[in-house]
């Protein structure tokens, strides 16, 4: 057994790397498969006994064809609107609610917190029809606002922000209070600078959830011109006309913005994850 702190022996290190490599392959294998399928030309076989990752005749034509087949940019723009509303709603709403629950004293705070937590127990399947009926009675069916609204403040996000605000040392808050700061000033000057990490976690998760959601936008939207990307991409998988290469290319197109958002926020993201892990 190696004592902690000493460099592991070469053999052990090899085993570690092999295991890491194995997990890496398991994680990104399906993704690489999609990527390779999206680059395959019309003469390459898709299904085979020994999968070949390298296309015989690599081509980008599938990507161009996706754009020809469906209005992919319109769909992407719709998805962006929905994700934008959801992200803004959660960034503002979950922050305010989290701060209020963590730092403000008011009558019914515990009850409010309990109710928030209780809704986490309900799976989405149970509420989807009543949600649809609600959205319909608001006159928001077939609108992007109707798609975004139910997810605009996620209970889990409120809980995450609550934990993050709780982790800020109460003395800081008390000091600000002594200096005569009101609730808004304490939120803006004391709270927010300390929860940026968690905020980015909320933003990334909300963005991904809104961007990837399929069933809810499908149920709310009727006009194909208003479809979000995940719903619209389904047209590539039509009756009697499903080309796996195009489907893979569409998936790749849908995947890129998620990478972009993550890349932009990953610096804060890992900080946020650690905040939650250590102090929460």
């Amino acid at each position, binding site marked *: 057994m190696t004592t902690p702190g000493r460099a592991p022996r070469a053999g052990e290190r090899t085993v570690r790397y092999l295991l890491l490599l194995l997990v890496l392959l398991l994680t990104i294998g399906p993704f690489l498969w999609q990527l390779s399928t999206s680059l395959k030309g*019309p*003469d*390459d*076989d*898709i*299904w*085979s*006994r020994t999968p070949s990752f390298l296309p015989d005749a690599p081509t980008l034509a599938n990507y161009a064809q996706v754009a020809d*087949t*469906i209005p992919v940019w319109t769909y992407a723009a719709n998805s962006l609107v929905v994700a934008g509303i959801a992200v803004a709603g959660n960034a503002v709403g979950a922050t305010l609610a989290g701060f209020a629950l963590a730092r403000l004293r008011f009558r019914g705070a515990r009850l409010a917190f309990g109710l928030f937590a209780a809704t986490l127990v309900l799976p989405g*399947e*149970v509420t*989807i*029809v*009543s949600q*649809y*009926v609600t959205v*319909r009675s608001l006159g928001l*069916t077939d609108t992007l606002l109707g798609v975004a609204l139910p997810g605009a403040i996620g209970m889990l996000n409120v809980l995450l922000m609550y934990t993050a605000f709780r982790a800020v040392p109460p003395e800081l808050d008390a000091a600000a209070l002594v200096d005569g700061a009101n609730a808004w000033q304490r939120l803006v000057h004391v709270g927010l600078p300390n929860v940026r990490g968690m905020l980015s976690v909320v933003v990334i998760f909300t963005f991904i959830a809104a961007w990837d959601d*399929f*069933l809810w936008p*499908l*149920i709310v939207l*009727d*006009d*194909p011109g208003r479809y979000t990307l995940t*719903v*619209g991409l*389904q*047209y590539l*998988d*039509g*009756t*009697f*006309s*499903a*080309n*796996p290469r195009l489907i893979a290319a569409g998936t790749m197109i849908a995947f890129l913005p998620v990478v972009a958002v993550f890349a932009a926020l990953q610096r804060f993201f890992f900080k946020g994850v650690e905040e939650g892990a250590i102090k929460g």
Partner: protein
Amino acid sequence: MRHIRRSRPVRWTAAVLAALTLAGCGLGGAEDSGTPGPVGTGGEVKGKVSLQTWALKPKFTAYVEGVIAGFEKKHPGVEVEWLDQPGEGYSEKVLGQAAGGTLPDVVNLPPDFALPLVKQNLLLDIGKSDPAAAADYVKGGLDAYRFPGHDGTYGYPWYLNTDVNYWNGELLTRFGLDPKKPPTTLDELVRAARTVKEKSGGRTYLMSRKPNLVDLANAGVPVMSADGRTFTFNTPEAAAVLDTYRAAFAEGLLPEDVLTETYAGNTKLFASGTAAWTTAGANYITSLAVDNPTLAPKVVSSPAMGTPPLYVQGLSVPKNTRNPAAALALARWVTNAENQAAFARQTSIFPSTTASASDPFFGKSDGSNAGDAKVTAFRSLASARVLEPVQANDAVKTLINQQIALAVSGQTSSKEALDTAVARANQLLKD
């Protein structure tokens, strides 16, 4: 390949269904402004009417737009709004629309999707609203929209399809079998599978799926009672079919993972060359030519074993439509002989109109293997029947599959598995 598409998340359907049952009466009813009584076709065909199809864009965009343009030309003053829904999640979409009272005026519903709506009394009985229609469509198509316990016909049959056998000619030849004389019965199939296993050293399979209700129906087993209230497939004949498969499985004639719910599926295994036989719709070779261009030319087709299954798509009209006259006229127009014949020339599907049954187009192959498969399928249609009852929804099929898997793997006896499956399926029907 899917002729009738199925959505994967079974629990969704169940949950939405449950919610629909709750919401159906109160909320659905709130929408109709004075329920239109017995609807006749007498009203004038004009105004707005919406048509919902299932995953026909983008391949058939031009075709559907042409059909709609023809309708609008025939009835000046009518305006059709076409909604094409994506393939995935269609069942949930329809149930959501039904619960919210927002079903379009004309909806493409396969019979198994129509049944829950019929149970909620949401669809128009076209037999009553449009009695003349019955003469125009083949009986099998109309029968698919008649449900035991519910009087009436709840949809205009649209396009039909059936299954044919597809064989990998190259593999059969390599293992000493004649692709021109493929197996025609289960026993012959098992024997051929044994040859393939021996000659390939166990690397290639012929059979690659476990038996299902269709196989039982084909063995002469009555799957359901005539009133559609109870399943009845726990007969000695059914047990014999399972026994045959159990022996074949023990012998290694089927891939190990066919017993799981999530195995790749026999068409995928066929496409990858792991299995040399699959069943699929008439258009399978055409789609295979896109997926695996090198395999498609080697595929040989033959008629389905036993009674060919009949798959039906149709157009239904919800009861709360604001424009019943135009909705019925539109559904009738889209499914008329002329428009269906034109549709069938775009892909390998078959019209449900009696007028098209004698259309020489379908009996003639262009000489390609895809053309041969189309002709085989068309000839099979005459004897095709709906083999899987619509009452067997996803939840029922899942539990039947589980019991069949237990029997084939040898963990329970075939009789015991069938008895359990029937008992539980009947319980589900009652709930």
